[in-house]
């Protein structure tokens, strides 16, 4: 099986899109002089693949990239050398041979932070608890395939667990969400909240991916 990197993407790097990030990695491997396998074909290029693309603007400390290390480089030296060749905000934490299939990556742990710089309304916490505690929460999701232009999705079955924690000017929602087939983007939870409770809409919301988990809730790497 392939090799993997575990990396974080924070700060200014949050705004690098998925495609741009792949290109950034391809160049960074070359800059760090770490030879990796190229694709075959007419326009060969270094092969890299990033599991479960992160939305632009989200930060993460658990991104996974697959590639094939060629001879002469040991896994241990990759993180430091590659990080030095990266733009600000991308830190390669680990490099290791893959041992599990990517489809075993079942859940993602997200931290969603609601900012209320003018002071958090008291009712926001029970409101969020009410929303996430519902039996079902069906929303309309844009879809190009569906004839109507949208499909209906129930978010509740895609939420494995949640916890709300509040301070005077923020509300933090710790979520474990289905990662794939189908996955749930926490943005949809924000949107559902703002739709149900427009008066409690925050000034700004940040999203952070904290951990990749397997079906049992253990760390996936």
């Amino acid at each position, binding site marked *: 099986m392939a090799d993997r990197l575990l990396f974080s993407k924070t700060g200014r790097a949050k705004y690098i899109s998925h495609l741009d990030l792949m290109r950034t990695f391809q160049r960074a491997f070359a800059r760090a*002089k770490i030879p990796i396998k190229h694709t075959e074909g007419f326009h060969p290029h270094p092969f890299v693949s990033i599991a479960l693309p992160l939305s632009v603007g989200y930060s993460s400390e658990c991104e996974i990239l697959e590639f094939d290390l060629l001879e002469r480089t040991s896994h241990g030296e990759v993180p430091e050398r590659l990080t030095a060749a990266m733009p600000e905000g991308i830190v390669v934490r680990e490099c290791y041979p893959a041992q599990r299939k990517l489809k075993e990556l079942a859940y993602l742990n997200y931290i969603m932070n609601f900012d209320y710089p003018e002071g958090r309304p008291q009712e926001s916490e029970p409101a969020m608890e009410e929303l996430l505690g519902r039996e079902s929460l069906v929303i309309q999701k844009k879809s190009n395939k569906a004839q109507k232009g949208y499909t209906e999705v129930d978010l509740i079955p895609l939420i494995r667990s949640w916890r709300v924690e509040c301070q005077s000017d923020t509300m933090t929602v710790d979520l474990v969400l289905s990662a794939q087939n189908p996955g749930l983007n926490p943005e949809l939870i924000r949107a559902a909240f703002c739709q149900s409770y427009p008066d409690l809409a925050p000034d700004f919301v940040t999203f952070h991916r904290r951990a990749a988990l397997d079906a049992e809730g253990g760390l996936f790497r």
Partner: protein
Amino acid sequence: MNRTLEQILPRVQKPARYTGGEYNAVVKDRREVEVRYALCFPDTYEIGMSNLGCRILYGVMNQEPGVWCERCYAPWGDMEEEMRREGLLLYGLESGDPISDFDIIGFSLGYEMAYTNVLNMLDLAGLPLRSADRPELSPIVAAGGTCAYNPEPLAPFVDFFVLGEGEEVTLEYIRLYRQAREEGWSKEEFLQEAAQIEGIYVPSFYEPIYNPDGTLAEMRVKEGSGAHETVRKRIVEDFDHSYFPVKTIIPSTEIVHDRVMLELFRGCIRGCRFCQAGYVYRPVRNRNPELLAQYGKAACEDSGYQEMTLSSLSSTDYPCLLELCDDLLDYCAPRDIGVSLPSLRADTFSMNLMERLQRVRKGGLTFAPEAGTQRLRDAINKNLKEEDLLQSVRTAFAGGWSGVKLYFMLGLPTETDEDVQGIADLARKVYFAWRETTPNPARGVRITVSTSWFVPKPHTAFQWEAQITREEYQRRVDLLRDELKRDKSITYNWHDPETSYLEAIFSRGDRRLADVLEWAWEHGAKMDSWSEYFDFQRWMDALAACGLDGDFYAHRERKRNEVFPWCRIDPMVTPAFLWREREQCYASQTTPDCRSRCSGCGANRLLKGGVCNG
């Protein structure tokens, strides 16, 4: 990152262009920095980051202890709207600090249609547009680049212009600025001293005096300013010892020229009579091929780029091109790095070279014959023979290429209908060349003919010429379209005439046009090189509101003795030489290239010993 910025970014397209933090971006410790410089490019990040000149200046300045140069680009409309709404001032990408707090703001001016972006960026920075309304020493606003060769339309907004190559003069004026600040000079005192540095034009020291007919009577030197009669451009004399950006910023998002740019030489030996770059970048200075190979490899290693381009005004005129290409290919081919050669001449030598480069990757094939007949090509001194072009495309088609683009200009001096029809004939000959040589006739061929509307430029042999009228341009377009309509394999595109008309106005414009720029900007003009934003009627209204006639600038032929708005600017190519070249044009006589014979343009005076090494 600034909190306001962080809230704005999720709402705009392509936010990565507004964050900085790229690989090799220079971040310095504010406490150790004395001079902060905002290097501004009045267009989007993708365009500005593709500019080699800015990369050079960025490197040159940041090598200097105590100086921190940051980048700044024009935000796209959605970002601008957010910035204005949230009160976020234009900031340097590296630090996020507002550029209004910087010491020097320097603009790179590459084309006239970016002028309104200069105004818009000053406004987004929270600064008054006009130099006179910025009485303090800092921030001082400078501008350089090709358009600075006629800086007059921007004169009231910019404190000083820099002529020619910036590697040395930039550090000289930064040094002077440091002294000015230490010794507490006023802005006026600083500008007076700056005007003594060769290559620096302070527009407020020159006053345009007009004749009743609207032409210039003189550009009067302001008494007591100490400003020079003429300001000479600057060049880097020893190109081997000038800075090359081996280690340069690698954007995290895609830009227009996303590859290693290897600059082979400066200047051009050809002397095409319409070409401003060909005149103002003289004399030719070549870089040593071994040095270039070394730079090229090092730049690939540091950047991780998979593509390299050999750039110069006419790359195939580089004397050691074959050796250089072989050397580079030995390195690039095994690493799957593509090497491309833009600005190819359509001759056999170039085609052999193309085949060599194809070892790695096959790009598109583009030629610029500029004119359809040999007579007109001779008149504009585009020394390209029809047979050379046809031989080149034969080689290319035989080698399996199935597409070629041909660029021409309409409205060149002395052009007749016969010359216009000549474009169609030439395109057809290219088509027959394909039929004769292609190994694969079933695949078909794509021949694209593109024409633009000729814009006469300052400091060229055609600086006295009238641009043909729009009706006449349209008539010639229609004529050519008619000629080509039966040829299914030939596609004809023509350039939008509206921007070419404005370019013709501003490229040879005087200081009165500053009011037009300001009026247009106040009424929403910005990003005028983008069709999403360009509004021709707004410009017509702006001219009318300022009581100026665009045709006076664009469509009027100048007399030999007319005083030009750029008469104080000296690119070291003499007006006498340019006039001679114009006369040669009317006689359909060519002038040999600089390597074959010196034509005495005057640029050799910039070199020690007075001999060009072209």
